[in-house]
């Protein structure tokens, strides 16, 4: 296995909701209101090799976007560290997060929100590389024209504004902006979730082309199991802040191990299966403000036993390259 490009080492992220003024006064007067802590990501470890694409899958509140943002240097971890080529991606400076590398870039879900509506797209794409001396200001124009061509847009569009483009085209612009920084690692947060099916295929094809042309490494975040299967080499399934299963894509889809993964596959409607009897997962997704004890999935798990309530199962190897966090693999749930 080649050396790891990205090393996520026992990373946690907590968001603390500080009491506002009224609540502080109430606190002084004796109303015991506690600070609320959201444990968005807890104790996640993952390494990504150069040239590899790892999919992060999970439902709302599972921490997949928070983890992606920490990798992209938008947040710093509360505990643990994220190393990109042996150096941290970001550091905390006072109350601000300072990103330390330009070689990790992020592509966001909604291309309507991620592009500044008042800046011509050519300037959006060239702003970063010019500021960071990747290209000289004189050469920026041809650099942008090149990039737009590369993502399948007509280079003459660079004087236009974002509102003149469709959703799929805007996502191409967002990809061009990320590529302009000559990144080694791309973090893609639900990049096709807001696109129509026929446009989705176009953007996925573009991503796969770029990946092989530029030897990109990627973290691909999505709730769509089909999309992730198509583009990822390995997939991590997350539930309430933890990775519950991590495996090479083909093996995971052929034989999911964790009860949550299995339940997730069961409840996804699929084209071509025909009218089916749904066997959905029972129960609601618990709030990350107040997650269940032990294994977070135990209240919804058909195999849960007393041990699942008591202790959280660690992510353990169950085969070459395969990891799962379930007591069923390590001596049962009693």
């Amino acid at each position: 296995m080649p050396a790891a490009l990205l090393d996520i080492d026992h990373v946690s992220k907590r968001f603390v909701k500080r009491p506002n003024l009224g609540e502080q006064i109430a606190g002084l007067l004796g109303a015991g209101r506690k600070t609320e802590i959201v444990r968005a990501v807890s104790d996640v470890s993952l390494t990504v090799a150069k040239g590899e694409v790892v999919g992060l899958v999970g439902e709302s509140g599972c921490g997949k976007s928070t983890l992606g943002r920490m990798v992209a240097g938008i947040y710093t971890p509360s505990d643990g560290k994220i190393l990109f080529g042996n150096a941290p991606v970001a550091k905390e400076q006072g109350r601000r997060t300072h990103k330390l590398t330009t070689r990790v870039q992020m592509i966001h879900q909604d291309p309507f929100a991620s592009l500044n509506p008042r800046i011509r797209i050519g300037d959006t794409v060239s702003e970063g590389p010019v500021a960071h001396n990747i290209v000289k200001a004189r050469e920026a124009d041809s650099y942008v024209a090149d990039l737009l061509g590369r993502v399948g847009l007509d280079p003459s569009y660079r004087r236009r504004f974002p509102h003149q483009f469709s959703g799929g085209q805007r996502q191409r612009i967002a990809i061009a902006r990320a590529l302009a920084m000559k990144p080694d690692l791309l973090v893609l947060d639900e990049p096709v979730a807001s696109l129509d099916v026929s446009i989705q295929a176009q953007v996925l094809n573009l991503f796969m082309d770029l990946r092989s042309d530029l030897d990109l490494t990627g973290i691909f975040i999505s709730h769509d199991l089909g999309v992730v299967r198509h583009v990822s080499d390995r997939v991590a399934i997350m539930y309430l802040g933890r990775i519950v299963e991590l495996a090479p894509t083909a093996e995971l889809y052929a034989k999911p191990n964790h009860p949550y993964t299995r339940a997730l596959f069961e409840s996804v409607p699929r084209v071509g299966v025909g009218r089916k009897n749904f066997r959905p997962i029972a129960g609601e997704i618990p709030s990350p403000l107040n997650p269940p004890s032990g294994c977070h999935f135990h209240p919804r798990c058909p195999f849960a036993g007393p041990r699942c309530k008591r202790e959280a199962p660690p992510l353990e190897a169950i085969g070459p390259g395969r990891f799962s966090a379930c007591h069923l693999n390590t001596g049962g749930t009693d």
Partner: protein
Amino acid sequence: MNEVVLRVKNLQTQFQTRAGALKAVDGVSFEVGRGRILGLVGESGSGKSVTGYSILGLVEPPGRIAGGEVLLNGKDITRLKGDAMRQVRGAQIAMVFQDPMMTLNPVLKIGTQMIAAVRAHARVSRRAARSRARDALAKVGIPSPEERLEAYPHQLSGGMRQRVAIAIALLHSPAVIIADEPTTALDVSIQGQILAEVRRLADETGTAFVWVTHDLAVVSSLADDICVMYAGRVVESGPAADVIGSPRHPYTAGLLASVPAEHEPGTKLPQVPGSTPSLANLPPGCAFAPRCAKAGPACTTTPPLQQFEGGRTALCHYPIEPVSCQPLSLTSTTYRSAS
């Protein structure tokens, strides 16, 4: 064949703009039988939602229904006005919207809203209305419905709120419920729960559903029949399994082919080139022709509605020949063995 409860005939809905009348819905026809689920599928701008709104008479100026009929139990409801329509809407035909936070009033308890909805159409005591509301909540699988009546919408999760919205739609046992992307905002495990609930309700209560969605996978596992819309027209219709298994219209085929789950990972996905045309600027003849691989010289003229055996139609000059084997079953079996 079971009894048809909703028949839409040549529905035309137009929006008056400076650029002229935009035909958002251009001659849509379909019918839904008792207890059946019809999937109305299309991408953004295909007119699927406007079709739903038109059926319920919810299109507001500058939009208007320019022609066609909506027959609910044999009676045309497009010409009903004001109070007469209000008598029908909510009682005989109801709607569920995409975002349940927008449908529920945030400052009223669930119970208050439901009791008002019961008493809008039935002369019953508050007490009787309350017990009907509670029964409706139980019917959609909400645990401890009595307590939920006392809850405010923000105290419920997204999935629960959507269940409440469906329960409200069900209060008067309507013949038809129009559901506009009702599970799009929900997580997959919660979506699975709702779909299972809806299938059961349709089978048990006989209420018919028109399920408006962009998601082919949802439709293929939930619906009995499918209408595929493109640029305001139904381009293909028929029983769900047949349309998914062997699409006859090139657009349906293109959509199905571009679903990633059906392909070998990492391979190039077949894509439909271009993007959906603007209604203000539709190509003459078949609106799909500029993106279609099968397009020929005839496609600049309006395509004929071709009827095939098994209750199938396609709006196309050059429909695809039917395939006898089901090309998609291969990947679905690998999934089954996984479970």
